[in-house]
């Protein structure tokens, strides 16, 4: 039995790196410090769905083949294709992503990562107005106003509040954990009293305690860090907030633009914006302007609803305006643990963060034109490689149909929706459990991923598989050029 400390958790963009694992007989048996998702991954990753050998589709069925045969077949497909898509990259290491860029360049394809279905619009927004941001520790030490907009950290990034925002101890700001527990106790007490009253008076219906106008606040004035949650529905995170603003679906843009006017001391001609009374928005604007250090975290509630990248752009513009009055930052809540790394690696090698098209021999970028989803929907591709992602489970039906019409190569540890559709399937080792590497946290801080157990025999890492395919592609291409030269 051994204990491995300071392990980085390869799940979400929080990249908590304080996980303590107990390893017995090459198996993780105990997880300390992690959230529930983290625990289930480290303990349960060796499910029955693990692929054990390379597979190829023969007569309509996936059958086991040798690594060599699979590599040759994959390289043949890629080297001979006219417009291949190499998609995924978000749940693997930056080391593998580096090889991925070279492979895509070599085959003249499109390299796209899962940002295209989550925070790609955030990047487009950033490209229009920039982004005033910071690392998460800066928020821990200094932020006295924390806003979650269109995201629910309590469910999707469980330790975000505890490690980086409201419930952490910083140098200049203290944790709100105790205050929150007191609030919970007080609420529980209130509920008890109410039910006692109800029993006494025999009434079944009780007047609601809080204001019922949608979007009206449940305000609690206090010192210390304040938490604002803005969402279309009352999420778990919203339950904990000092202010909760319920915005009408698809109206975030209007809300934000109205806030910008108010922050600039302007007046509005309307009484309500996105279902929220302007009087209340004025209070929110006051809170924004009067903080010492504020931060907005935003999620897919902003990036994937009507307005998409313009929603992010206006959020950033609001933060730009606020910086004229106080200090404010903004940060996307990135999902996959290394989707940030996929953007970062792609950017340093090509200049562009995702949706990079090498078909003309140099990198080109234009989301909408060179992004994999759009290419699939227009049916322009003739081969695909999917790695460290599962588009089979989350892409629109038409896109997947078009993907499956042509040869599909899949690299994944699991038999998932995509690998079941694949023509050539490579099993790979789990990055961050069976292979070491590097990942980038949502605030672009790089962290090492550890190898804590040995991968199953014969299972290679993403990086090794890609390197083999790349070498084979180069061989095929050099043979072709030699042939051409002869002719």
């Amino acid at each position, binding site marked *: 039995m051994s204990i491995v400390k300071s392990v980085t958790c390869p799940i979400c963009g929080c990249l908590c790196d304080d996980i303590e694992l107990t390893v017995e007989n090459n198996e993780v048996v105990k997880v300390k410090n992690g959230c529930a998702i983290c625990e289930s991954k480290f303990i349960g990753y060796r499910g029955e769905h693990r692929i054990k050998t390379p597979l190829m589709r023969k007569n309509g069925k996936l059958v086991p083949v040798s690594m060599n045969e699979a590599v040759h077949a994959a390289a043949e497909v890629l080297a001979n294709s006219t417009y291949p898509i190499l998609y995924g990259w978000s749940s693997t290491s930056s080391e593998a992503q580096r090889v991925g860029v070279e492979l895509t*360049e070599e085959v003249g394809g499109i390299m796209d990562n899962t940002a295209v279905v989550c925070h790609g619009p955030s990047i487009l927004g950033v490209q229009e107005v920039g982004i005033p941001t910071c690392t998460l520790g800066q928020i821990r030490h200094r932020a006295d106003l924390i806003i979650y907009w269109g995201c629910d950290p309590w469910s999707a990034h469980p330790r975000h509040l505890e490690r980086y925002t409201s419930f952490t101890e910083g140098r200049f700001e203290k944790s709100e954990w105790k205050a929150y527990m007191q609030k919970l106790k007080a609420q529980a007490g209130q509920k008890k009293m109410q039910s006692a009253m109800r029993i006494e008076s025999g009434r079944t219906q009780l007047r609601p305690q809080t204001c019922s106008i949608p979007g009206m606040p449940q305000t609690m004035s206090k010192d210390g860090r304040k938490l604002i949650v803005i969402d279309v529905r009352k999420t778990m995170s919203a339950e904990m907030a000092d202010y909760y603003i319920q915005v009408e679906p698809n109206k975030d843009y209007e809300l934000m633009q109205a806030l910008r006017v108010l922050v600039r001391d302007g007046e509005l001609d309307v009484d309500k914006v996105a279902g929220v009374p302007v009087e209340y928005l004025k209070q929110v604007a006051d809170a924004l302007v009067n903080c010492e250090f504020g931060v907005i975290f935003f999620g897919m509630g902003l990036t994937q609803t009507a307005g998409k990248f313009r929603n992010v752009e206006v959020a950033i513009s609001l933060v730009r305006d606020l910086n004229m009055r106080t200090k404010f930052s903004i940060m996307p809540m990135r999902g996959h643990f290394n989707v940030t790394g996929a953007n970062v690696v792609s950017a340093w090698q090509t200049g562009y963060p995702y949706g990079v098209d090498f078909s003309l021999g140099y990198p080109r970028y234009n989301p909408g034109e060179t992004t994999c989803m759009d290419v699939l929907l227009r049916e322009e591709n003739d081969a695909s490689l999917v790695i460290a992602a599962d588009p089979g489970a989350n892409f629109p039906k038409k896109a997947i149909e078009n993907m499956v019409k042509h040869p599909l190569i899949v690299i994944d540890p699991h038999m998932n929706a995509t690998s079941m559709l694949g023509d050539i399937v490579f099993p790979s080792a789990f990055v961050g459990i069976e292979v070491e590497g590097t990942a980038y946290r949502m605030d672009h801080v790089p962290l090492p991923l550890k190898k804590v157990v040995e991968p199953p025999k014969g299972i290679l890492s993403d990086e090794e598989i890609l390197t083999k395919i790349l070498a084979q592609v180069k061989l095929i291409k050099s043979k072709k050029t030699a042939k051409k030269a002869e002719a």
Partner: protein
Amino acid sequence: MVELLIKNGFVFDPINGINGEKMDIAIKNGKIVEKVTRKAQLIDATGLTVMPGGVDIHTHIAGGEVNTGRIVRPEDHVKDVVSKTATTRSGTGYSIPSTFVTGYRYSKMGYTTVMNPSMAPLEAKHTHEELNDIPLLDKASYPLIGDWWFVLEYLRKGDLEGCARHVAWMMDITKGYAIKIVNPGGLESWGFGHNVHSIDDQVPNFCITPREIIVGLAKVNKMLNLPHSIHLHTNNLGLPGNYVTTLETMKALESVPYEGRPVGHITHLQFSSFGGDGWGNMKSAAEEISSYINAHNHMTFDMGQVIFTDTTTMTADGPFEFTLYQLSGHKWVNSDVETETSGGIIPFHYKKNNAVNATQWSIGLELALLIKDPWKMFMTTDHPNGGPFFAYPRILAWLMSKKAREATLKKCHKKAQKKSLLPSIDRELSLYELAIMTRAGQAKALGLKNKGHLGVGADADIAIYNINPETTDIARKYKSVRRAFKHAAYTIKDGQIVVKDGEVVGNVSGRTMWLDVQTAEPCRIDDEMRNKFKEYWTVEYDNYPVTDHYVKVKDPIIVKASV
């Protein structure tokens, strides 16, 4: 290993006092040697200029900040694309080239060693990952230390020895090369949106002044015997009237014993030499600054020359970028790093018909020409802040030719023309002086013993340019000389030909250098320190250091400290 013999070139090797003499250079195993066998490959350098490979003391080419610059500027890349070839990878420019293109373009100009001056220690792994992808060059990075909480606390206590041990440890865990200080105190203040405005302002919450940080770290630098001095980006950078702060900073550093080695390097001096008291009457203070520098020997400098083009400014000086944002309204990136530093990015177009921009252009050249000793002042653009590095040949032309300066100045804003000191300066730099400003001087200031010269034992990093100093009047024929510097006839890296006739023909990874500072008593990483670490950062202590995994070709430089 191949042997090489460069025959019959005009050699400019200022460290060894060689000024344009016709001689042969022999190379074996990547080093310069006395002689080679007859089997050596010959390079006929007859009629060509031979210099040590170029050295750049300050160029932002890798790391979190640079890469964010790449991400936010697709419109900058789309106008400058580079195709894949049989030997080279594809990529993009313009002002923030992708990693491979950075290596190729430097090499095409005959550069072989570059220094990445701004590395947030928390993101050091990122910087090193990028450096691995920059081919054909030797590289190193300077970690940002000036606003690092531990350093501020040591200096406040007056514990210089403790601070020195801590810095030694930091160099090791970040794989850094020199102490970088940016707007000391200002970056910590910027955490809450404030700034410091003189070297004697108090830094909020830390009871320390910029003066104490600068002088303290200069002394620490001395105690550690680091090869380079402190690398300083002054307070109030980029603001009218800031030359006063710059003079005060230089005077403050007089208190650190000189002992024949510079105690400080002020980088991109142009941005720190503004006169006037507002943008309306902003003017050059090159005269004041250069006359001080000519009378003192304790410091070195680089230009931070401005080029008229569309570029991207990026610096750890977050408050300065915020000022630029307020002035321009352009897209703005701010990137504060917990406990350590801040950062900012603004795209910027320097225009001839803008009085301030044109004055900045003039200031850079005035400084370079008025500072008499070329061993003190080096050529940079603070890439990409003043302009992209591949514009260096244009700066060389301005430095060596009054005619070239006049040609540009007459297109500048009238107000800037009237105020410019350039018409009164007749100095035209020789190839020998240019060799000092672009390689020898920089290598010397950096303490790189095997670089910047062509003596026996030096690294075989060599540039050969298509300039015949005997037949070319460089001041008059500046255009052809500019072309020659843009496309080296040969660039040799570690004894291999990597560029021929301005095209990349070879592939060498290049090394990453860092300091292995050996103190008598190492920095103690006890429980108290670990606990503090947990308080200060959001990452675990064990995950913080840059391990060997992150450096592809390792070149640690051992330094014996005197503590």
